[in-house]
């Protein structure tokens, strides 16, 4: 037995009859038309759901914005009221009617000192 024939004999020990010596992996499975349709519908639903989620979330911000704007408006009104109140407290009439002002004493008209 030659060396090459001994090699061939050893190979034959592993190979059965009518069997390819090369093993092919299973070919890529192609989806059928129904599966494709279902997948597309599911994807479309997912996209729609995503869109709805985003729209709902954005509109939710709208309520937050509206609430903050109302708060801002109320604070502005409060500030305006406080400014009015501060101005009233400093008004001439109020100062003139104050206890301090009523206790003030009139002074004679001023003159000029001759140096």
């Amino acid at each position, binding site marked *: 037995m030659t060396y090459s024939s001994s090699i061939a004999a050893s190979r034959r020990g592993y190979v059965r009859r009518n069997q390819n010596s090369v093993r092919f992996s299973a070919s890529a499975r192609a989806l059928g038309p129904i599966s494709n349709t279902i997948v597309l519908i599911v994807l479309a639903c997912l996209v729609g759901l995503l869109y709805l989620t985003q729209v709902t979330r954005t509109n939710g911000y709208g309520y937050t914005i509206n609430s903050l704007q109302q708060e801002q408006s109320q604070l502005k*009104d409060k500030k305006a009221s406080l400014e009015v109140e501060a101005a009233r407290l400093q008004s001439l009439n109020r100062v003139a009617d104050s206890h301090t002002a009523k206790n003030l004493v009139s002074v004679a008209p001023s003159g000029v000192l001759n140096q």
Partner: protein
Amino acid sequence: MAPSRPRGAAGPHRVSTNHRLRILYAAVILIMGIIVLRLFYLQIIRHDHYRQAALSDQLKQYTIAADRGIIYAHQGDNVVPLVLNQKLYTLYADPTLVNNPNASAAKLAAITNGDEGRYSQLLKTRPSRYQVLAKRLSENQKSKILALGLPGVGLQAQDYRVYPQGALAANLLGFVDDSGNGQYGIEQQFNNQLAGKQGMLKAITDVNGVPLAASRDNIQKNPVAGNNFVLTIDTAMEQQVQDILQAQLKKVGSKQGCVVVMDPNTGSIKAMASYPTYDPSKYYQVSDISAFNDLAVSDPIEVGSIMKTLTISTGLDKGVITTNSAYPDPGYVNIDGATIKNVLPIPENPVTIKDVMRDSLNTGAIHVFKLLGGGQYDQQGRDILHDYLVNHFQLGKPTGVEQPGEGAGGIPNPDQGSALNLQYANTSFGQGMTATMLQMASAVSSVVNGGTYYQPHLVEKETGTNGSSDSFDTKIVKRNVVKPSTAAGLRDLMEYVYDSNYAIYSSQLHPGYNVGGKTGTAQVAINGGYSKTDFNATFVGFVGGDKPQYVVAVMVKDPYTFESEGAQAAAPIFGKITNMLINDFNVLPTSH
């Protein structure tokens, strides 16, 4: 044994099932087809129609009101608000929803200090759906009303003007009506600038009217607040001038009067008071709308003898007289068939120009008019006097002050009309012509300040919301109104008048200061003639040290006092204002 049915062959039952399935499929497809077609019709063909229908329900447009500008004035070195905005509330009710009108009225009246009976009546006025119960309620009152939780009762917010200084300077400020429009005064003059530009929100909203942020159709345009104004007025001075004016009018039984206090070196109006006046926050309670007028601006009158200051200035400037000139005066003048006399007797002849000013001699003013004509009453004299009054002292035309409805007054045409020389003789002492107190203050200012006519103005600065600022610079209308020597001469004459008559003016001397003035008493024109009982009293004067710091013009209409009204009715106002200015407003004394 029965023969077996070949595999795959349909029996009667199977055939029936397949047939039904096909029918079902066909029905489903048909229904779906119908739905698709319907959707196509609704969404594609009727797209615009349904879009509009949907938007009409969901798309709402709101107007966003702009804040009205604030008006400030000086208070010493500070700037304080004269007019502010405040949100107040209107209380309304829908009577169809009110359960117990009497009980509701009692609760509401207790909070608003309103009339319970009136409220009760309004709450019962069915089928009306809207009744206004009260206006201008405060935030505190609003909260109390909301806490009651009364059905059918609501509150609506609205911006109102509020006046922390009360009725101070009401006649020059004006007011804002319920429609948001400025009426009278600064509010009307600068209505567009004060009002700003309202904004707009156009948005898809939910059922509660809250805008949905995700809508592409939302449009928001922010409002632009109105500009703020700073006036030249000093509030403390204005208040005192107002008080002095009102007290004196009451004392002499006058129902109308005004005062202007002006800086003659800039034209800035420091105080301008008018009476009758009103509370601008309650303008709707005013029954006589003449109370809204700013008399110093809108009411030209025959000014009387304060005109002599301008006639004599003309004579001094043309060189036909000096402050020491003297002339023989018989105490009357005959012109065009009329005889003109004086109120006071003529002093010893020859009469001097100082006498003319001190005793307010009409014949003296006519004498100057005669000298302007080269020694006779003629066209030349009329032309010169007209030229000075109109082109130098700017009478007969509005000054351009920032007030609506300014009166122009009138100076007789020197070329047209009858008895022209008589007309101009009258004009020389302030009859037969008209001018406002503001015109007279400005004209006299232009003489005593050395010869520059500044446009009188009330606004110092306008500030926009973007921070831009416009200063209303001092505007010179005319230079070289008179020569400096004329200005000095008139100042001396007016000081002589004041020093001679201060006691009559219920005033006092002010050593170290220069105070000058001139009284005026004008007969009131009625039905083509002059009333023998009605007079207007006027006064114009200045206060200062080395140079006049303030010019004051006063008008008192129809006081009870007879004759010498200018001295007894108007001059005391000037005297008291002079004391006030020297004591409180930093008038610098003379340097020598």
